[in-house]
């Protein structure tokens, strides 16, 4: 089997290239190989869509309200403040 044919049928390699392409660079040859694979493989096309979806979600995860509203306990903050005040006095 020649190299082009091999990638055309190899989903493991194709999904590897999908990942690499999103956050790094792949060679022109790899781009063509991937394009050929995706044109014939609906399963890897779904994988690609979902991979992009996951990356986009993770990138924005910290913007979620669940993090924006997180608070430390008051007691912990009080102790921390005392500790910092003490340290400041030491250095002055």
């Amino acid at each position, binding site marked *: 089997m020649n190299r082009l044919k091999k990638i055309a*049928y*190899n*989903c*493991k*390699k194709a*999904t*590897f290239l999908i*990942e*690499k392409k999103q*956050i*790094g660079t792949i060679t022109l040859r790899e781009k063509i190989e991937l394009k050929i694979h995706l044109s014939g493989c609906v*399963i*890897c096309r*779904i*994988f690609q*869509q*979902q*991979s992009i*979806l*996951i*990356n*986009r*979600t*993770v*990138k*924005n*995860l*910290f*913007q*979620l309200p669940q*993090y*924006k509203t*997180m*608070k*430390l306990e008051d007691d*912990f*903050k009080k102790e*921390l*403040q005392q*500790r*910092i*005040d003490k*340290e*400041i006095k030491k*250095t*002055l």
Partner: protein
Amino acid sequence: MQVNNDIKTVNNLLEPQQWVNKYADYLYAYAFSRTNDEEQSRDLVQETFLAALQGISKFEGRSSESTWLTAILKNKIIDVYRKKSSGLNKRKEVEDAEFEQHDFFDQEDGHWNVAYRPKSFGIEHEDPILNKEFIRFLQMCMQKLPTLWLSVFTMKHMDDESTKTICDELNVTPANFWVIIHRTKVNLRACLQKNWK
């Protein structure tokens, strides 16, 4: 004279007395979003402030106070990643996850094995951040990843760190980095599919 000047400059730019009030909640949430561990996150906030106090003379005012504190916290989080993923557990964890990996693709020809073929979630074109259920499953599935994989994944996708930085900090080769990135995504996606009904 020099010492007085230094203190004066620093006092103008940094207000350590205000740190807890202004930044503690933010830094806590930041740490928790990356470690998923409340106790660890509390420790990290405390360590960050104490390290910042010790390094106060190194602050040059090139960034804002909050950016500077966040950078210190980021380094502390990387220390945690490194410690967690270099222990005895590391090999076992990765081995288990890699064993599972064999099932995703046919070993001979690299085809998807039938049971693991990606199927549509039906939300590929929505804004995923609005889908609470999807977020919940994603966070749950991330916590199931081996520590080293989660560290690489988080540093890359949440913090947008360079590949070189990640490889250097976590002591992985570039080739291994790409293998981890690929395997993590295949695992994560499969976990989502298993839970997404």
